[in-house]
């Protein structure tokens, strides 16, 4: 009776993840520093940040695996630090190292996880069929996991993480080393789950993965420095504008622009070679197109084209992190 009431409560929550001032200190080191955010039901929420920024530490606190130093967290209404056991029946977790048993078949892996989560025989049979179908593993159920390619393994790992039909799923850098087609299929699965009301929190340090999330938080040195949709982040968090310069001799042009940056002749934020082109980040869109072209022309470099280009999410992330350092 009590269990059923809990389940109803878990399904109805509008914001299954609520985090306020979450902090984790290891001795003198603050790994997670007063982070606050919430995730709505059925939302795909991403955390983009470098290694060591505190992404995995946060997930571990939310899973109840690490003690919270300060602040509060609620996952599906449960407090992970005191109610982890009850919470785990409704929460799935897939780590970056697909934790699968290579010497078991695909189906045996699903069964193993189902049993670990305490599913009944009948329920396990039902879920097993669903997951094999969802992951596109039909015909490969009896293959040894070791023999599956990256994309299959990834979908199997996801299947195992959700065998108990969780309402919240944490994915820690899930698509490392998977080919682009499999990665697209994986994200189709993620959104199919989200459409059924499952709440997803993904951590990543790749911008193409972050770009697929509905909202993205930028994490740097334990702090949440920006949080919005990928499109809005590009509009609001980019300091400066990206110029793409095409010229006959890009190496010579890079040398000129780098000197200009170092000597402060032009307020260039970043200058970098992209194949035969150069990307330069300048403060505003008024004068610099002309200024850059003129400077290069003065040095005898023929400029073929100069155009404004849209920043990538990675450009925005780097700009945002640098702005905080200055």
């Amino acid at each position, binding site marked *: 009776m009590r269990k059923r009431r809990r389940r109803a409560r878990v399904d109805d929550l509008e914001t299954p993840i609520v985090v306020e001032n979450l902090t984790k200190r290891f001795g003198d080191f603050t790994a997670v520093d007063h982070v606050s955010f919430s995730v709505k039901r059925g939302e795909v929420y991403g955390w983009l940040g470098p*290694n060591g920024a505190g992404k995995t530490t946060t997930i571990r606190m939310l899973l109840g695996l690490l003690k919270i130093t300060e602040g509060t967290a609620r996952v599906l209404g449960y407090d992970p630090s005191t109610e982890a056991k009850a919470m785990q029946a409704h929460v799935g977790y897939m780590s970056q190292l697909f934790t699968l048993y290579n010497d078991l078949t695909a189906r045996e892996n699903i069964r193993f996880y189902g049993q670990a989560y305490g599913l009944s025989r009948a329920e396990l049979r039902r879920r097993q069929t669903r997951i094999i179908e969802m992951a596109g593993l039909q015909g490969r159920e009896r293959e040894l996991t070791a023999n599956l390619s990256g994309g299959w393994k990834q979908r199997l790992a996801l299947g195992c993480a959700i065998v108990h039909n969780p309402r919240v799923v944490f994915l820690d850098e899930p698509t490392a*080393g*998977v080919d*682009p087609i499999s990665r697209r299929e994986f994200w189709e699965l993620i*959104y199919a789950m989200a459409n059924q009301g499952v709440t997803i929190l993904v951590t990543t340090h790749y911008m193409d993965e972050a770009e697929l999330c509905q909202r993205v938080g930028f994490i740097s040195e334990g702090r949440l420095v920006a949080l919005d949709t990928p499109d809005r982040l590009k509009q609001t968090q980019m300091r400066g504008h990206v110029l793409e310069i095409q010229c006959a001799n890009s190496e*010579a042009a890079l040398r000129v622009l780098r000197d200009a940056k170092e000597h402060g002749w032009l307020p260039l934020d970043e200058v970098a070679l992209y194949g035969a082109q150069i990307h330069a980040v300048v403060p505003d869109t008024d004068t610099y197109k002309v200024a850059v072209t003129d400077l290069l022309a003065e040095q005898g470099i023929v400029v073929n084209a100069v155009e404004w280009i849209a920043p990538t999410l990675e450009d925005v992330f780097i700009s945002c992190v640098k702005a905080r350092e200055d």
Partner: protein
Amino acid sequence: MASDIVISARELVKQFKTRAGTVTAVNGIDLQVRRGETFGLIGPDGAGKTTTTRVILGLLRRTSGESSILGYDSMRDTYAIRERVGYIAQQFALPGDLTVMENVRFFANVHGVSRAEQRRRIPELLEFAGLSRFTRRLGSRLSGGMKKKLALVCSLVHEPQVVMFDEPTLGVDPVSRREFWNLLGNLRIERRATIFVCTPYMDEAERCDRIGLMYEGRLIAHDTPQAIKEMVPGRLLEFTPSRFGPAKRLVKEVEGVFEVQTYGATLHVFVDDALNGGAEGRQRQIEAALAAQGVGCKGMREIEPRMEEAFISLIRRQERDSEQGYLRGSP
């Protein structure tokens, strides 16, 4: 051979014999890297990038075909190649109990760089990689990004004309990844080095002059990033449908739709822009076709295809072609 071709492979094949039979990891590759350019061999895990690199370097025996660096044959002239080429393997192991300086000296000694030359080059290289302040730090105490920089310094200590890197940014965070590519840019302008990089990250294609897209042992495209993106016909539309499954099925049937790719909750649709009012006309057609079945489209817009969209499209085309070839070949 033209003298400006630094790395060359012709009909290169590498097969491995396993218990299960013969595996063809590299299946007839032709590629050429010109002097001073940055070339990216791009493809997913298991495509054969590492094997190709190792065969060209002479670390693995090729099964058939030809390969050479600076005119030296990969199999016959391995010593000449070793002297002139720098290499960072994917799983490079720098001794963790040596300091940064000791690591660099170790590699310099292996390559037979004289003491006097070491005194000149090493501080310069450490400065170049931004490691001058960390010469006494133990290798094991470096961050992931710093380890990659140290590996870069070690691979440059014998002043090679050609450097080959196998997934140098694997597992490296965005800031360090940017720094590493900027270092490669500097390497290009300061030392005029020819750079060959393997990477699974499609966006790194934009950092290269020319790239080879590798998939299942074959090179499915070999050109500048721009030219490869232009190999995909039509224009690209993006939208978020109100109902994903039905929309995905329906949009494939709309006239002038070349290809549909999924992208999270959104659909990417390549359309024929030659007729019917171009991409905008197609946009209206798609909206009407979906609306007729009660499916809404949110945020329909035209976007620039990125390397990943082009790669997916080219893989699919190759798979279709090989299927058709198979059908034609059967009785």
